[in-house]
């Protein structure tokens, strides 16, 4: 587990050792540390938009005692495009543009809320809305709990999440809206989170459109019919 202070210390250390300016985006639990939503995270998730900078960062991490780990050492299924670096209790997940199946969008870049400069390392913190959007692509209970914490302590701009979902559906993962719908549904039912009705209505509309696109009208009608029967 990495705490706020440890995370800052590692960034300072790496920033001081980097020979060239390197920019990255912090997402997930480590972004939550910057906002104060959490006090510790299992891994520090960083997204790079450029392979050269990622390589540069990895080389510098190695100088500080981190070693590359294979995905087989992990219990959950990690993304092959992600590079894992580990040192005792600290772990870095280094992504390049794609985060598992989600694309790191221009909208996420434009919405950054904090920028931290540690000598040659520039760390941009994605917005709370984007943290939630990125968490919906996974199936872990911990991620749902994190999303609940964010929603309960911040005013969330749900339109931003909806727009991001539409962008992802068009440019990245086709089923993103479907995943988001299931995620929101789960938060509403199991965690009793207060989510605006307008957003759910819009999302349901998008969800239906996406399902038709993915399955085709006939299969969608069949699926809707079985759902209706189950409910009745």
């Amino acid at each position: 587990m990495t705490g706020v202070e440890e995370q800052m210390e590692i960034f300072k250390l790496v920033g001081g050792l980097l020979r060239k300016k390197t920019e990255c985006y912090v997402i997930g639990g480590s972004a939550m540390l910057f906002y104060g939503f959490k006090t510790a995270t299992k891994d520090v998730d960083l997204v790079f938009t450029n392979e050269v900078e990622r390589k540069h960062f990895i080389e510098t991490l190695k100088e500080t005692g981190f070693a590359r780990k294979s995905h087989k050492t992990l219990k959950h299924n990690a993304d092959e495009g992600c590079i894992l670096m580990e040192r005792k209790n600290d772990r870095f997940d280094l992504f390049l543009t794609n985060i598992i199946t989600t694309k790191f969008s221009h909208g996420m870049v434009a919405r950054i809320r904090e920028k931290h400069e540690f000598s040659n390392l520039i760390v941009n913190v994605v917005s709370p809305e984007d943290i939630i959007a990125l968490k919906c692509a996974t199936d872990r209970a911990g991620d749902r709990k994190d999303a609940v914490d964010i929603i309960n302590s911040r005013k969330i701009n749900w339109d931003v999440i909806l727009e991001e979902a539409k962008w992802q559906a068009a440019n990245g993962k086709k089923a993103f809206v479907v995943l988001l719908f299931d995620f929101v549904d789960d938060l509403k039912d199991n965690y009793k989170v207060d989510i605006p009705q307008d957003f759910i209505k819009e999302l349901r509309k998008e969800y239906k459109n996406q399902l038709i696109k993915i399955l085709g009208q006939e299969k969608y009608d069949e699926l809707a019919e079985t759902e209706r029967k189950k409910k009745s």
Partner: protein
Amino acid sequence: MNYDKMAKNLEGLQTVSSAAKTLGVGRRTAVNYISKLKKYGYVRTSRGKGKIRLYEISGVKFVKKSGTELYDFINKHSPIKVREPYRYVIHDKITAEDAIPRAIETKDFRIILAAMHLFRLVEDWPELNRHANARGVQKAVGALYELARKYMRVRRIDKRTANAFMNAKTMEKFIVPNMRSRDFLDIEKKWEIHIPFNKSDMERY
């Protein structure tokens, strides 16, 4: 009283009046609530136009961070205040020599105007040149220095640095995209870069 809920309800930038309106209470009560929220770490205070108090209220307690914020540094030293578009924390020592090129890099009219005052604090001109060179804004720094000299007491630049600024190669023709000056054409011509300010902008200095 549930202050967590209240903080979330008031999240954003508030004045006493707007907070009172949101909470549906009188001004005096709103002041008391804001004071309590401040005590619990949900509020940061700044001043707006006409010295009115502005309260930045967050749903989660503000995390005390190491490092200095660029916009705090500008606000501390300049009579023109800026509102941060996002938090920009620098975890090294920040100086005027470092802050001027950073402000120019933002390409934001008001931030650059506010940062003009920092020329008064510059002591190490080669250091300013080093930072400006790293960010590719030497010509802009040279032009703004000359403009600053017209309106405020600024130390004289050494000739070596002035020459370095003058001879710098840059493709940038504008400091702020598509903004040019009506009043400082002589400086623009000399430095071959468009200054975004007019005399009326500089009157505040």
